[in-house]
């Protein structure tokens, strides 16, 4: 019997050695399954052309090179719309979408969680229910609604729906429920601060982990948004779309294409690494009550 000492406390829980070994074994198998494709993607990006088209192919790179990334940047510079434009578009869409979402969702979450007004529960239940279906269901009619509002072929078609994405509101409301004590808000109200002021000065600083989580979720969605059916003008397309476009050139661009996959995945992963502890903290209150 292997004994495991839990942190902080001195109580000893029984752990069988067989169980430990089995769990470690399973974890390693699953970990390899998850990690190998990522590793393979990185290997492919570092392979020189003759290794990419070598027979028999190897998993590992023998002479790693950054040439693929250089090729990718050269290809970027030859594109018809200057590449800085695509980067500008993606940054603009991400920033506008993310901060609009953060502000609107927090405002709404605060009112629902902390000002108990008639109708709040119904509103939250509706939002919760909308987590149960995928956006593809509403895509057709969203398109019609957007064209009615003349939003098609402008960045608003991407930005405005991002403002009212549901997961963010859900997580923010749950986090406020558990992490913003009513007594603090009450004393602020007694001091004569209005609801808006209480929200901004007292509640918002207490939910920083949730901000970060909302920002990251929204950013990931917008960053990974590829070719959109809502935007057809070349000068408003996203970076992700442009990169898919230039690397779709077949065999000759296999190296650049491998490099672009790694480049596009690096950004969300780095963002997650930096913010992991905050996201996990937010998820602590994500539970759904029946």
């Amino acid at each position, binding site marked *: 019997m292997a004994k495991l000492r839990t942190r902080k406390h001195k109580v000893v829980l029984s752990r069988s050695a067989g169980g430990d070994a089995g769990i470690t074994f399973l974890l390693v198998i699953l970990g390899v399954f998850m990690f190998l494709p990522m590793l393979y993607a990185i290997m492919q990006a570092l392979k020189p052309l003759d290794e990419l088209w070598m027979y028999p192919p190897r998993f590992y790179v023998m002479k790693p090179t950054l040439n693929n990334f250089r090729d990718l940047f050269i290809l970027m510079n030859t594109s018809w719309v200057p590449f800085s434009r695509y980067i500008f578009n993606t940054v603009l869409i991400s920033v506008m979408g993310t901060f609009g979402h953060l502000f609107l969702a927090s405002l709404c979450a605060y009112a629902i969680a902390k000002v*108990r007004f008639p109708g709040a529960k119904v509103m939250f239940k509706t939002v919760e229910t909308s987590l149960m279906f995928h956006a593809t269901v509403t895509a057709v009619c969203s398109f019609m609604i957007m064209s009615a509002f003349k939003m098609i072929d402008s960045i608003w078609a991407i930005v405005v729906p991002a403002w009212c994405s549901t997961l963010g509101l859900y997580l923010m409301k749950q986090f406020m429920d558990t992490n913003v004590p009513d007594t603090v808000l009450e004393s602020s109200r007694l001091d004569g601060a209005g609801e808006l002021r209480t929200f901004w000065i007292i509640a918002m600083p207490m939910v920083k982990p949730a901000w970060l989580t909302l920002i990251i979720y929204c950013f990931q969605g917008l960053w990974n948004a590829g070719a959109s059916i809502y935007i057809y003008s070349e000068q408003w397309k996203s970076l992700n779309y442009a990169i898919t476009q230039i690397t779709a050139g077949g065999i000759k661009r296999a190296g650049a294409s491998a490099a672009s996959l790694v480049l596009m995945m690096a950004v969300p992963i780095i963002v997650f690494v930096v913010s992991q502890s905050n996201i996990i903290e937010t998820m602590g209150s994500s539970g759904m009550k029946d």
Partner: protein
Amino acid sequence: MSPKSAELKAVSRTDITYRQWLWKEIKKNKIAYAMVAPYMILFSIFTILPVVLSVVISFTDFNMLQLPPNIVWLDNYITLFFDDDIFLLACKNTLIFAAIVGPVSYLMSFLVAWFINELSPRIRALVTLIFYAPSISGQIYLIWGTFFSSDSYGWANATLMEIGAITEPINWFKKEEYVMPLCIIVALWSSLGTSFLSFIAGLQGIDRSLYEAGAVDGVKNRWQELWYITLPSMRPQLMFGAIMAITSSFGFGGVVTALCGFPSVNYAAHTIMHHLDDYAGQRYEMGYASAIAVVLFAIMIGANMLVKKALSKVGS
């Protein structure tokens, strides 16, 4: 707020009726309504309205050209279920896909989260990253296309040929018998998302003293601990995770299209989502497409409700 709880609140106020009390509450909370308004209005326009509109349009033959559209009542649904073999095939594929990817990804998320719960924080963070990364890395799943490439330069083909299992390269994503299993594997690989993080946080949040009390009360091993203490304590996370896992298990149409093309060979991996795309994006038969969307909507909500009900019984 239900009338019942309102009555409870108004117990000390017998001088006013429920209706008067409600009106007073609404007037008192004007600022709260102003705070929820911007989000709720947008949410209504871009989420609630499309659902309602889909139901309405599904009773018509709207096709973007002829105006006004004719009302055809249930014709679209009748065609869908009795005259459209590809739709039935798509239904079958979608259900197989969701029935495998949903539960397996849910279980994998929970087991991995549970396995790493007792590791040191640094190692836990690293393992979390390894398992979570595929779900946030955009189009990284395309690497599976390279790995299972159709020619002998693909690693899978080359290796199988090397050991003599096959003599000719297999065109993996164009063969009916391989398309579904491969897509399911890729979907599973990239499915450890929000529910996974939620489980990790849920496990971390369980009060340690519960385990101590359990040990005193005769909990002998980790399995008993899991069943009697861990699972009941994190039921809210289990519920949330289930919903995220089920919903996303219906959303892997993009992965299939990217790997197998559209339509997939002999519709072998054709899902309801692809059928919807086909009628809305290519043929502009919006009435028919809306009927498909309504069916898909009903399936998703139904699956979620069912699982929610089942989960509320865990540990009780």
